[in-house]
């Protein structure tokens, strides 16, 4: 009678362990698939060049976060430089496909007319326009 009872307990434990293993197996499989589809990449002290409508733009930051194939996020002190302007700011988002970069943090821009300070910006590179938000001060060489 005791032996039968022991066998039942052992069988129950074996089934429970197998059940846990199946749960862990499926749980791990799901998370792995999700991670691979996001393809998150982070690079520190990053600099590179991007070819867009306005020509070659040099970009750089303390930390680069690649969100997907078209979107990158320049974390910390960041910059965008090309033949027309130099933009120095923080936490700049770039959509490579739409050729748009933006930031909601203070930004300093130097171009051939002067030096500009604003509270944020949105650079519509495909349209040749940069919109500066908030209080803007543009000291010109005129």
């Amino acid at each position: 009678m005791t032996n039968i009872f022991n066998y039942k307990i052992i069988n129950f434990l074996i089934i429970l362990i197998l059940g846990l293993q199946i749960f862990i197996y499926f749980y791990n499989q799901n998370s792995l698939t999700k991670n691979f589809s996001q393809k998150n990449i982070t690079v520190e002290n990053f600099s590179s060049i991007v070819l867009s409508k306005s020509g070659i733009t040099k970009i750089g930051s303390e930390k680069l976060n690649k969100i997907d194939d078209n979107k990158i996020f320049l974390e910390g002190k960041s910059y965008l430089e090309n033949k027309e302007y130099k933009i120095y700011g923080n936490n700049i988002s770039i959509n490579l496909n739409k050729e748009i970069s933006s930031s909601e943090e203070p930004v300093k821009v130097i171009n051939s007319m002067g030096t500009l300070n604003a509270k944020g910006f949105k650079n519509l590179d495909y349209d040749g326009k940069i919109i500066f938000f908030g209080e803007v001060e543009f000291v010109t060489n005129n």
Partner: protein
Amino acid sequence: MVKLFFSGRLNLSLIIKIFYLSFFVIFFSTANSESYVKAGESLIWDSENQSYTANGSVEFKNDKFVAFSDKMIANYIKQNDEEIFTIVELFENVLIEFKDEIFRGNYAIYTRDDNIIKLTGNVSIESPTRLLTGNELIADIDNNKRILNSANKESLVEVLLENNADN
């Protein structure tokens, strides 16, 4: 020896005065010559159409005058790797300070080539001694000429201010 000491101190004092005087002259001449555009809401740089559009409590200053308005569109050209404003348009609640004169209007356009400011819509020109109002004002800065036009005689008003009224 005493004479030399005092003459030395005098010279040193003179040198310090000259130094401070030079410093202030350089500082103020630099500060006054500064040109800028300030905007309270936004500034759009359109490199394709070569213009800057400023919105919200706009302040524009160049070597000639200071202007205030609600909106400004400034066109520029590229000259020797530098961008220079050629035409500046000011919209709504326009106020321009030029030396001791104040021009007011609903719209103003300044052209750099001929240094002429043209204001329209309920314009006024205020100097320390008089106030003139009309519909259109053309201020020729280089030739120091002011032409004030009105739709009819009744709309042209001249007001002598207190300083001149006493005379």
